[in-house]
């Protein structure tokens, strides 16, 4: 991954993260605001319900009291036979707008019942348990009706005539009609669960429009309220269908839990708001990311262009172009880096020039030393021979001819030696340009090894040839490559004075060819390896030190590479890779 791509990713992620954080914060704040608003609305509705409940209670109480205070109630109370009043409650309930009304004699027997006319004569003993019904006010009560059980807001009044008493128990059903009187804000609804059965019954959950659908999902909430007898708030459902319910226990006569009021607030608005915010955030994020990409593209281009130029220049330096420079376009860190790079390459060039100069001087010195050394060896016998010949001419004239013959032979031999030395130096100086042709290195290796069979045997070196049949011909100068291989083999033989194994190996890589020459000699130190290809450098006591220099020169002329691996005491391997 390029530096520019990394920068681009970092910018893009930064923009996306920033948008995400903003969205989270805004969403969280909006949710909190919604929750607060919902809580306030629920609180207002609870207050409204309590107020309406109290108002209805007062209304029922007043109505019941008025009935109890009426002449009709008094007539019933004083009547010795109340049987003729069996229909009275229904008429009074209709007149006074009550859903329920029972006229009960002092002994607890129902005289007349509006909600269940057939119950005349049945006992309502609970009426005698409360000493002051007026102080008790209205209360919730479970009422049995012909078609089931209902929940009602009930009040009790008493009509007295002498020692006779008539209870007037009347009320209003807590039903859909009651719920419909509660003004609900949009998105909210009120449900009433009538806790009239021992087990949870979905049909007892009603709303203003009728039975509440999906009552089963409120079961656990209702049961919790019934169990704990306290207000409970819970969210039911998921997604846009979710509702937050504030549930209140409704206790009734004798403190029993007769109902649960549930004020539901739809979370659809919140979900839609969140969805809208999410859509906006995604849009903004997408736009931000696109803008971020564009900006980061531009910014990274500005940042990475000089870096890229620096990298290119560094590459050129690595490739050998030490004169490569970078344009300094700014005074920032990148500009300073470019300036430092330019100074570095300038220093490198100067140092290279100085090094070349120094090496050239060193080479000349080395050459002079070598030449002096090489020439001094044959010159000394020449001097001795000439001196012998002079001494014989003066002191032993009779032996001069014989001395002369021997001296002449020695002189000729040493002169030949001098000539050979000069020729070797001349050869190194006159290294010709390679004449490229397809060359089968396997064949070159095999033929060369054959030439050295005798010499290898004499040196007690075992020859091993490992030639890769898959090796394809490479473009090379056959003669020069033969010379390279010869030099390496000679070098290997010299490295194994006690004998050993010489291995010539060819390898067919994906492209080009590889030639390896390994010996099992004493090996080289890392320092020796570094200087191995320096002209006139040798670790041997004989030789000119030009063999490996010639090898490297040939390989270099073939655009190839030569490397050496060596481990002290184990041997050395020269590896040549061609095109």
């Amino acid at each position, binding site marked *: 991954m390029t530096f520019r791509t990394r920068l681009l990713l970092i910018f893009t992620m930064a923009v996306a993260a920033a948008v995400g954080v903003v969205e989270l914060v805004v969403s969280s704040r909006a949710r909190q605001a919604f929750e607060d608003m919902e809580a306030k609305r629920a609180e207002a509705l609870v207050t409204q319900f309590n107020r309406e409940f109290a108002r209805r209670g007062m209304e029922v109480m007043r109505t019941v009291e008025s009935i109890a205070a009426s002449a009709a109630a008094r007539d019933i109370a004083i009547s010795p036979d109340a*049987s*003729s009043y*069996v*229909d009275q409650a229904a008429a009074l309930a209709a007149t006074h707008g009550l859903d329920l009304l029972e006229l009960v004699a002092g002994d607890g027997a129902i005289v007349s019942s509006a909600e*269940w*006319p*057939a*119950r*005349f*004569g049945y006992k309502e003993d609970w009426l005698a348990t409360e000493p002051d019904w007026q102080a008790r006010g209205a209360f919730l009560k479970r009422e049995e009706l*012909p078609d089931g059980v209902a929940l009602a807001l009930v009040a009790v009044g008493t009509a007295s005539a002498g020692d006779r008493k008539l209870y007037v128990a009347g009320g209003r059903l807590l039903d859909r009609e009651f719920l419909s009187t509660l003004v609900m804000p949009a998105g909210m609804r009120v449900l009433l669960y009538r806790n009239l059965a021992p087990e949870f019954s979905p049909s007892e959950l009603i709303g203003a429009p009728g039975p509440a659908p999906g009552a089963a999902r409120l079961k656990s909430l209702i049961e919790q309220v019934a169990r704990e007898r306290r207000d409970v708030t819970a969210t039911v459902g998921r997604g846009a269908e979710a509702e937050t319910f504030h549930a209140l226990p409704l206790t009734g006569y004798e403190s029993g839990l007769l109902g649960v009021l549930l004020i539901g607030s739809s979370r659809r608005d919140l979900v839609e708001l969140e969805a809208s915010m999410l859509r906006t955030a995604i849009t903004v994020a997408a736009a931000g990311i696109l803008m971020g990409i564009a900006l980061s593209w531009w910014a990274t281009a500005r940042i990475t262009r000089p870096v890229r130029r620096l990298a290119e220049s560094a590459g050129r330096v690595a490739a050998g172009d030490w004169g490569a420079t970078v344009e300094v376009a700014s005074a920032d860190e990148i500009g300073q880096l470019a300036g430092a790079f330019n100074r570095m390459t300038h220093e490198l060039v100067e140092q290279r020039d100085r090094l070349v100069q120094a090496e050239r001087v060193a080479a000349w010195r080395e050459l002079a030393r070598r030449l002096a050394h090489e020439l001094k060896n044959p010159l000394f016998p020449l001097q001795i021979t000439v001196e012998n010949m002079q001494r014989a001419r003066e002191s032993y004239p009779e032996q001069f001819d014989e001395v002369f013959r021997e001296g002449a032979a020695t002189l000729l031999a040493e002169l030949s030696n001098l000539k050979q030395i000069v020729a070797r130096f001349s050869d190194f100086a006159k290294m010709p340009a390679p004449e490229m042709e397809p060359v089968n290195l396997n064949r070159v290796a095999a033929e060369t090894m054959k030439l050295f069979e005798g010499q290898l045997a004499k040196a007690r070196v075992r020859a091993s040839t490992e030639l890769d049949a898959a090796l394809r011909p490479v473009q090379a100068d056959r003669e020069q490559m033969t010379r390279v291989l010869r030099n390496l083999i000679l070098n290997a033989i010299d490295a194994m004075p006690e004998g050993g194994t010489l291995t010539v190996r060819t390898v067919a890589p994906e492209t080009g060819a590889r030639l390896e020459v390994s010996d099992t000699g004493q090996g080289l130190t890392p320092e020796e390896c570094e200087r191995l290809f320096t002209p006139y450098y040798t670790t041997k006591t004989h030789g000119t030190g030009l063999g490996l220099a010639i090898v490297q020169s040939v390989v270099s002329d073939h655009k190839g590479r030569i490397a050496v691996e060596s481990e002290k005491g184990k041997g050395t391997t020269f590896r040549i890779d061609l095109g």
Partner: protein
Amino acid sequence: MAGAATRPHYGGTLRVEMREAFESPEAMAPPAGFVLASWEAGRRALYTADESAAGGRPYLDSIEIQMGRPLRDQSTDLELGKADVVELGPNELRRQIAGRKVWSSSPVRLMALVFGPRVEDERVREALALAVDRGAIHSVLLQRQGEISGALLPQWLSGDAFLFAPAFDGARARSLATALAAPARTISLAVSDASLRPIADRIALNARDAGLVVPVSAQSVNADVRLVEVRMASSDPARALAETAADLGLAEPSRSDTPEALYNAERALLDGFRVIPLFHLPRVFGAGPRVKGGPGITRLGEWHFENLWVEDRP
């Protein structure tokens, strides 16, 4: 002047209202001394005075009968002067209407629960028979009209109705109902006459206390038990028993020439609780202030309008 106003005289039309709605004139007993002049099935009948009646021409020129009129409406019509003679139920009797005369027959109407063939388990029938609190119904809903009875024939007719004394035993009824399978504890009660609905509701409430579920409806088709009224049209006990058994869908009673035989025949009809007699009720009519003479009904509750006349002047 007042004495002159109440003197019998010829002329006028007597407006009569009744609950029943007959489809043919043969189904309705015509008022003696009058002949049918026009007939609208189920709605209206007009009878005119028979000039050649055996006992002499009635005072009234005609009798206009409106059929299918609810008891409450009849009472209202009587109060408003739209009707001269109406039937009165217990509720209507409680209303005090100025100038109204009340004619009551002997208890000639049998109110009873009649089980259909589907209710095969005698325990169900007995449980319902024991659950009904006749006393409360009689004192409140019937305003103590008639008699509580466990017999098919009224006491005045058979003389042995007291031997069929009804029993109210809620505990025994509950015991019988508890032993029943749940589906058998539900029996539908039909009451086609709306005026009997309060009684049916009370019976259902009594049955509920005993552990029976008794939904009440006006539909008699497929009902398990019906609340019915049967009217005695004969003062001959054996004949009345036979007619009553026929009306209730019971088997024809055995020949009963003696009181013992009559008792045994009646006992046989009641065994198995296929019929649960509840009350024997009189026929009660109210007559408006226009109507003079009377009483306008016989002991059996039949119309007896020959000696009535109407006074149109205030």
